[in-house]
């Protein structure tokens, strides 16, 4: 333990400074207005909108197939899950049952997405705290998954691959064998993550008891995903409302009750193990059959209101559509996980130092385009 000094430097100096929108630790264009007392954070005011593109407004003049391509651009690290949410909503509204093959492939893609997202988060989180090695380790393993994506969909980040009715095209013949190579590879590499960071005393000092969030607060602020589960809030949509093939795979919902930065970190590490387990169960179970059902070129949803939620790498993504029976939605709203997760940062960071604010915002795993939409 470092001996805590009683004197806080600059204790009586009030400062109001901007962190961002170009600060590396915000991982995107987000600005925090900080009220400081010396090095202690008194208040954090997040300012967003730097990458607001008006996706909800644009969607009102686009057909449902076109909106799929906009959903990618929200949480670009969970592109598959975003596509899936929109597709599931259209299928639910029209009463379409997709083939088994589609369900299994969608689940595999969701889990691969989650893995590559958590890998990138781990890489960047370590770097936020000053451990540069993590960045190379994380990206090294993420590349393997992106290669699988590239081979089948032709793109590494924004796929627009899952569409209403099924998939855009069939997966590459190598898809299965590549995943089967990847699973044992990553099972060997994942313990390295623990060796490098999880048990590291410097890392533990930086993350334990930093940014405490109780279960009640997590629910009240609407914190979902690994950040909510780190506070013991059971909110995994895959468990509570299974979609695609999640009802037939065996996996655990990871819950930690400490609610600090370290707990949120542990949830994501454990989720990577669970994702590997899901992949193992499904990779040999991909049935033959069609990769899509025949859809009309113009989809018109029956009049009414629809809500569909999925679990992305960062929490609960909800799509809310009001339809008047037209080919365009009357109103579409995306309840994105990062939007709710961001606004708890003031509560978490108060009384901590600026360096801890970096750790806290890293542990919330924010993706800025998902907030601004």
């Amino acid at each position, binding site marked *: 333990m470092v001996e805590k000094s009683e004197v806080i430097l600059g204790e009586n100096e009030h400062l109001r400074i901007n962190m961002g929108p170009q600060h590396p630790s915000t991982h995107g264009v987000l600005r925090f207005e900080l009220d400081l007392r010396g090095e202690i954070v008194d208040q954090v005011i997040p300012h*967003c*909108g730097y990458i*607001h593109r*008006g996706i*909800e*407004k*644009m969607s*009102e*003049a686009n057909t449902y197939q076109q909106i799929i391509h906009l959903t990618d651009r929200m949480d670009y690290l969970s592109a598959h899950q975003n596509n899936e949410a929109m597709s599931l909503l259209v299928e639910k509204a029209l009463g379409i049952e997709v083939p088994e093959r589609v369900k299994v492939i969608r689940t595999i893609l969701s889990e691969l997405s989650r893995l590559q997202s958590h890998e990138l988060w781990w890489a960047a989180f370590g770097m936020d705290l000053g451990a540069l090695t993590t960045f190379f380790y994380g990206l090294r393993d993420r590349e393997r998954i992106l290669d699988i994506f590239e081979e089948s969909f032709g793109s590494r980040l924004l796929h627009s691959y899952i569409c209403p009715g099924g998939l855009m095209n069939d997966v590459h013949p190598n898809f299965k064998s590549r995943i089967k190579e990847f699973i044992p590879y990553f099972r060997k590499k994942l313990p390295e993550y623990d060796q490098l960071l999880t048990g590291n005393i410097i890392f533990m000092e930086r993350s334990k008891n930093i940014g405490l969030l109780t279960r009640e607060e997590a*629910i*009240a*602020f*609407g914190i*979902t995903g690994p950040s909510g589960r780190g506070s013991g*809030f*059971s*909110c995994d949509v895959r468990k*509570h409302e299974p979609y695609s093939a999640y009802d037939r795979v065996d996996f655990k919902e990871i819950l930690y009750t400490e609610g600090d930065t370290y707990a949120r970190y542990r949830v994501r590490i454990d989720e990577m193990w669970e994702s590997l387990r899901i992949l193992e169960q499904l990779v040999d179970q991909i049935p033959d059959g069609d990769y899509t059902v025949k859809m009309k070129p113009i989809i018109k949803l029956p009049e*009414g*209101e*629809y*809500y569909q939620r999925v679990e992305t790498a960062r929490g*609960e993504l*909800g799509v*809310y559509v*009001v339809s008047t029976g037209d080919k*365009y939605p*009357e*109103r579409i*709203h995306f*309840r994105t996980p990062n*939007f*709710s997760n*961001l*606004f708890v940062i003031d509560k978490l960071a108060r009384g901590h130092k600026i360096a801890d604010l970096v750790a806290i915002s890293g542990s919330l795993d924010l993706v800025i385009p998902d907030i*601004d939409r």
Partner: protein
Amino acid sequence: MMDNTQLQQTIGRLIPRAVFNQNTQFVEVVIPADGLHQTAQLLKENPETKFDFLFNLTGVDSKNELRMVYHLRSTLLKHTLVVKVVTTDRQNPEFASVSDIWPAANPFEREAYDLLGIRFTNHPDLRRLFLEEDFQGFPLRKDFVDPINIVEK
């Protein structure tokens, strides 16, 4: 855990002025705007409902009326309810803020103010969220005209 008919009966008993919408995905109820804050408090604290998790809140403009849609879930009792409030006043739409009951509502209400121009009384920090402070108009309104970057159907 209550099923949807039981939940509808309970809500009907607790909120006598509620009007139910039929054939919807969740139990859906329209309540008078003047009782919004009181009803929200009741829905959160009543042991039969216990809606502690506001998971979605958004505004909808359907040309002749503006409405707010509250998606509520109980993490304890596992049921879901949709609450709606409606106003026909397009000049000065105003509802009570529920951000003191569910802190999650705070950014959602700021978003609705920013894009739809709906004001919330007693909101702690009602400023524009995405657009600049000097932006004119509310883009998600159906009658919004954007001369520079027209989104045309």
